[in-house]
């Protein structure tokens, strides 16, 4: 805590301040154009169900964006402890779409190569999830979950799979997990063409 506090006071730490960062966020992050409306009231941070897990609540993180603390913002775990409950979005008195901004900041951090962002459970989970979407057009809960476990290494994957075996058996017994081939759409080729094009457009616009 004290380390974090010190980091917010210019001159007290070796952190870098990049004053162009706030502008970049305003212009490139989804919902970022509304960030300058934030009046630091703290309603968002008080609403986060996993606020205690966050390095900084959204209010503080937004203040750090404005202060140009690019590295500290993009290394923070705040974005990955957002449950997407949308309390902040409906409660913010200034209409700041907090969840959208956090989500896109998390993605930007991974895209910019921050290790902290790339190795979170969230990043591994999202990678496995999207793999299933691209391959089948749908989420195969069995395969993508195992793929997620595998991202921790084979030994760990087997351990995690065993630990969840009783749940899997119950799901199969209650017809909530099937044993056959994955469900897949007919248009996976179309879907992948659309996704690739969308990624290309985004890259063109954002430069990351």
């Amino acid at each position, binding site marked *: 805590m004290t380390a974090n506090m010190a980091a917010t006071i210019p001159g007290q730490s070796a952190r870098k301040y990049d004053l162009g960062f706030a502008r970049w966020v305003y212009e490139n992050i989804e919902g970022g154009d509304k960030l300058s409306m934030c009046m630091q009231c703290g309603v968002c941070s008080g609403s986060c169900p996993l606020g205690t897990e966050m390095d900084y609540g959204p209010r503080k993180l937004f203040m750090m964006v404005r202060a140009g603390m690019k590295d500290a913002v993009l290394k923070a775990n705040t974005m990955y402890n957002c*449950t997407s409950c949308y309390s902040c979005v409906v409660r913010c008195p200034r209409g700041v779409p907090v969840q959208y901004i956090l989500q896109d900041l998390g993605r930007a951090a991974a895209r910019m190569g921050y290790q902290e962002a790339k190795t979170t459970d969230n990043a591994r989970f*999202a990678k496995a999830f999207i793999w299933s*979407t691209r391959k089948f057009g749908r989420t195969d809960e069995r395969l993508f979950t195992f793929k997620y476990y595998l991202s921790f290494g084979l030994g760990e994957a087997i351990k995690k799979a065993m630990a969840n075996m009783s749940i899997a058996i119950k799901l199969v017994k*209650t*017809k909530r997990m099937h044993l056959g081939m994955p469900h897949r759409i007919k248009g996976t080729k179309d879907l992948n063409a*659309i996704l690739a094009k969308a990624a290309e*457009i985004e890259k063109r*616009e954002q430069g990351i």
Partner: protein
Amino acid sequence: MGKKYTYYPGCSSESSGSHLDVSLRAVAPKLGIELEDLNDWNCCGASVAHVEAGALPASALSARNLANARAQGNQDVLTACAACYLKTHHTNEKIRDKPGFKEKINEALGAAGQSYDGDLHVRHACEVIVNDVGLDKIKEQVTNPLEGLKVAGYVGCQTVRPFAGTEGGGDYDTYEDPEFLDDFIRSTGAEAVEFDSKTACCGGAIALMSPDRTLGLIKKILDEAKEKEADCIATPCPLCQQNVEMYQAAVNKEYGTDFQIPVVFYSQLMAVAFGMDVNKDACLDRNFISADVIAQKARK
């Protein structure tokens, strides 16, 4: 004959949330809802696609579904899944209202020769039941009222947040204290207990990726349900249902509790109260914490 909706079941309908899909399809005709499945629907990306794929590709997932729905003709796209609703609704709204977005999304859709203008309405099954069906229609269908059954109505997050409004304009409920679920529960003859945790968060996808971070959130929901002596928890959200049921054993292990509270969908309550088959239609056999108490309480 009812009104026709293009139905987007979503991925959970084929797996952990199959009991929502089956029970909703069972009660829909009785409520005057005619469901026509969306052609070749794909995953909505839920709350996780964005992190890996980016904002525009995540929206493109919904845009393909919307383009398929447009070709199908019905004006309303209905979904019962909170995440599918949120993502599809949000994308639809952006295509319709956000300057420049329609062009970008159509450039992406163009890669598969598709296009979409943003002129459909994306609607949640619960909102349709509130606004198009009405509570009276639910009550009319009840043959076996669930008398004496105490139900904790657990709405969760994304069913009402951030879209508690309809695409056609107008509201169906409020963000902070939604009433629709308690209304559904009462319409089946059951008692809706006062439940402050109704919009508490179950941990969402974080519960699936790192359950240790979210067991405490689930425990709070269970604590209140127990304190209010609820026989079961009812929810509209597939992820809420899954998390609160699936992790009860882990919560018990972690906190030394002995929760054994069934977690069902509102549509399962309706199917039982409508006198339909408790397994084939109400899917009570798809709950792994036994929900037989619902059938037992139903007046024969």
